[in-house]
């Protein structure tokens, strides 16, 4: 049980909210494909015990920028080095403006069986506000065309809590998403990150973040509408129809090992986490010299406990207290139990046998609760 993540660090243009690693110049792209294939070779034994792969995930950046030939090379490299299960989930993140009919058909034929389409909003003025490269119409057409080509697993991304966007308009976005009959929706509350255009505007006082009460109301609206339509709220920002849960992403929340390849990609082998350098040129140079430019850290027992809380509580699977307890001293365990009892009593957490979960109310302030539960010296 393991997965591989491939980071494709290129975008046509910078969205104003995004702080992932990408470049808008594709000059280094051919060399990058070589480097990614080379890193796959260098890291072929990273995952402990040579597990078979359940998932492959192309993220970015914008992986849909890639030509089918490039994708094929990467996929072939993976297939050559690893045993990939026959029903493995192979996801590609895509922007609507890249999804021509021909490209969709090529992707499908290459074995991509899941698309995660970055739609964000179905309203053109909002798309402009976010500096997206596509229109609402293009987004709807992309989904329909992908369905026509045969993709049975389609996820779309939406953003709420955008300054100036009313509850009504947000509701319209939700209804439009449901009307497209996709099986998976990721809905993210806008976070203003420091090193983005929005971040700079915020610092200069040109952008006022949405009040948290407004964002909370939009989140409540989202949960209510999607649950009514049969979706399961299986992670804070993820909703799926039964059978459509994202397998690769779920492995992050279930603490399963994964290998991340490409600049800024992260890996986890069950004991330590590591991250590749977030710089395209330096990444290519180092890989060419035969060295994976990664920095990592071994997780301490305390880190393990905190990560189990952090990832587990965000999901419907919750976290197993007996698993967490293994990592704690008796004193730390006592402290944790006291905090849990307090939040259970206040209705933010629920404890069912060994499993701890957030209640509906708890999901809204998950970070405050996590902070209280965290074990620190």
């Amino acid at each position, binding site marked *: 049980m393991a997965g591989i993540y491939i980071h494709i660090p290129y975008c046509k243009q910078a969205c104003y909210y995004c702080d992932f690693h990408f470049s808008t110049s594709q000059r280094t792209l051919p060399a990058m494909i070589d480097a990614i294939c080379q890193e796959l070779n260098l890291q072929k034994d990273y995952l402990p015990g040579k597990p078979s792969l359940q998932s492959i995930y192309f993220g970015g950046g914008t992986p849909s920028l890639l030509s089918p030939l490039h994708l094929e090379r990467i996929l072939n490299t993976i297939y050559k080095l690893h045993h990939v299960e026959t029903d493995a989930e192979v996801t590609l993140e895509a922007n609507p403006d890249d999804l021509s009919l021909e490209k969709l058909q090529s992707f499908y034929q290459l074995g991509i069986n899941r698309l995660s389409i970055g739609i964000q909003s179905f309203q053109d003025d909002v798309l402009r506000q976010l500096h997206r490269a596509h229109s609402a119409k293009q987004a709807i057409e992309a989904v329909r065309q992908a369905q026509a080509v045969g993709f049975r697993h389609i996820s779309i991304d939406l953003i709420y809590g955008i300054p100036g966007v009313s509850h009504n308009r947000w509701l319209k976005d939700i209804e439009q998403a449901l009307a497209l009959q996709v099986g998976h929706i990721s809905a993210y509350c806008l976070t203003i990150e420091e090193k983005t255009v929005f971040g700079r505007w915020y610092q200069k006082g040109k952008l006022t973040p949405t009040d948290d009460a407004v964002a909370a109301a939009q*989140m409540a609206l989202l949960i209510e509408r999607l649950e009514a339509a049969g979706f399961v709220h299986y992670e804070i920002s993820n909703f799926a129809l039964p059978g459509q849960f994202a397998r690769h992403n779920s492995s992050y929340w279930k603490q399963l090992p994964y290998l991340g390849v490409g600049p800024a990609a992260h890996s986890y082998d069950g004991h330590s986490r590591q*991250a590749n350098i977030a710089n395209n040129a330096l990444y290519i140079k180092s890989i060419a010299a035969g060295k994976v430019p990664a920095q990592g850290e071994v997780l301490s027992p305390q880190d393990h406990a*905190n990560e189990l809380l952090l990832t587990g509580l*965000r999901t419907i699977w919750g976290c197993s207290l007996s698993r967490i307890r293994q990592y704690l001293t008796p004193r730390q365990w006592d402290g944790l139990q006291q905090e849990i009892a307090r939040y259970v009593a206040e209705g933010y957490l629920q404890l069912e046998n060994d499993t701890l979960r957030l209640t509906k109310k708890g999901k*809204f*302030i*998950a970070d405050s609760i*996590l*902070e209280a539960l*965290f074990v620190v010296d």
Partner: protein
Amino acid sequence: MKNIRNFCIIAHIDHGKSTLADRLLEYTQTVDQRKMQAQVLDSMDLERERGITIKSHAIQMKYNYKGETYILNLIDTPGHVDFSYEVSRSIAACEGALLVVDAAQGIEAQTISNLYLAIEHDLEIIPVINKIDLPAANPEVVGDEIIDLIGCKREDIILASAKEGIGIEEILQAVVERIPAPEGDPNAPLQALIFDSVFNPYRGVEVIFRVYNGRIRKGDKVKFWATGREYEVEEVGILRLDKEPRDYIDTGDVGYLVSGIKQAKEVKVGDTITTVSKPCDAPIKGFKEVKPMVFAGIYPVENSEFEDLREAMEKLQLNDAALVWEPETSAALGFGFRCGFLGMLHMEIVQERLEREFDMTVITTVPSVKYHAYTTGGKMIEVSAPSEMPDPAMLDHIEEPFVKVQIITKAEFVGNIMTLCLERRGVLKQQNYLTTDRVELVFEMPLAEIIFDFFDKLKTISRGYASLDYEFLGYRESKLVKLDILLNGERVDALSAIVHRDKAYDWGKRLCEKLKELLPRQQFEIAIQAAIGTKVIARETVKALRKNVLAKCYGGDITRKRKLLEKQKKGKKRMRQIGKVEVPQEAFMAVLKLDQ
């Protein structure tokens, strides 16, 4: 005795006092280059970091000049108004002073009050213009300033660069030639001035002194005049880089003694040492009992750390004679200590030393002066914390300490300084022009108005060109009230303050606003109220936190998010839970930051 020279260095922060001292030690081979650590004299880490001298130090150098060996005692002085009494005692132990002025900056006001102190004690002043190697150096103009100020001749001024080693020889020669040798009667009864003490965990307190008359020998039975305590001198010696024992220290010289004194507070700066068998007639003039001026509560963040804090305070007091404390209890903060400090810098230093040397995280409450509250029954109660204030119904009137404040500044800043002092309830008593450009202002003001941020404010509005000195006048009646802060209806005793009635509304409003900024949002609404007695005079609300959850948590977000939450949680460890409300440490000091 004719070959002894006792001198100190008067300089503004950053004008190169410590570098010059280092250079003198190197030149006289008191310290070899190998052992040289920048700023040898500033022995506490805190001093080296802040670039200021907190305690006095002394060191002896040998210097050969024209075939004779001279003993030069360099006595370093603290550089802050909180310690002005200690400065006066160090100066009293000298016959001369090096006035060190930065060649680019010119004379700064902080230098002036110490300079006057030195002139008052008849010290021979040797002016030195330092940093002449700087591109911006302007020794001509700076020289004019010095001549204006002390009336010396231009050729008396030594041009130097301690950094480059220029002028060091000349300075040493001037110390020998211009500073008079000490006077005194070697055959008279012992009379020595204590100007410093150093705590040594193995040997007890080392007393640093200057002998005025007579001689102090190993084995002597000595008496400290002010405390009346008697000791046997186990060891005397001179202060080289390390302490070097001698059989005796003679008239005019500087030395240390060890006699198994366990606590710093037994040794009072300014006290006189004499012998039991043949005491001197009178003590050396100028001794003052140093009294704390500022009081504040110090509490452990965790109640369970109270005993650890007590132990840390006891150890701290061993080498900080000025620190006084006694246990107190606060409804909001539990068990802690009410402490008395010389001033705000002293308070900060104590807090920082607790954190650094003893790894104690503490909460300090709003600083206060000592008030005299008179009850209707005519009884006087000393109040150094708002919680000690008697019930308003029982209260007849309150008196607060007043001080005479002396400010020396440039003429152009007089207007701004007047405004500041009048805001702080000051009354102008004198305005003297020392030169056409230099003005001395004398105010009478309540001490409470100058202990917080007055000095910082003064420096800002005068661009650093103002010196401050103050002396205690006495207690005077004032219209004071106790202002309480309530969080969700609960009175938080640690946030109460005693303020002037006319300022209470403004103060209450601003304090509520400041607390609103400082209190983190929680799952429920927090009402912040300011009240006098039962009357609420200001209110602010911290809205409930409605949503706090990270949108994305994938591969790379996990570590980042975990670390962020861990850091936040550690930050919360410095918070106190009052009722259900979590209050960060800074909130207890919010009062001090009302203007920011």
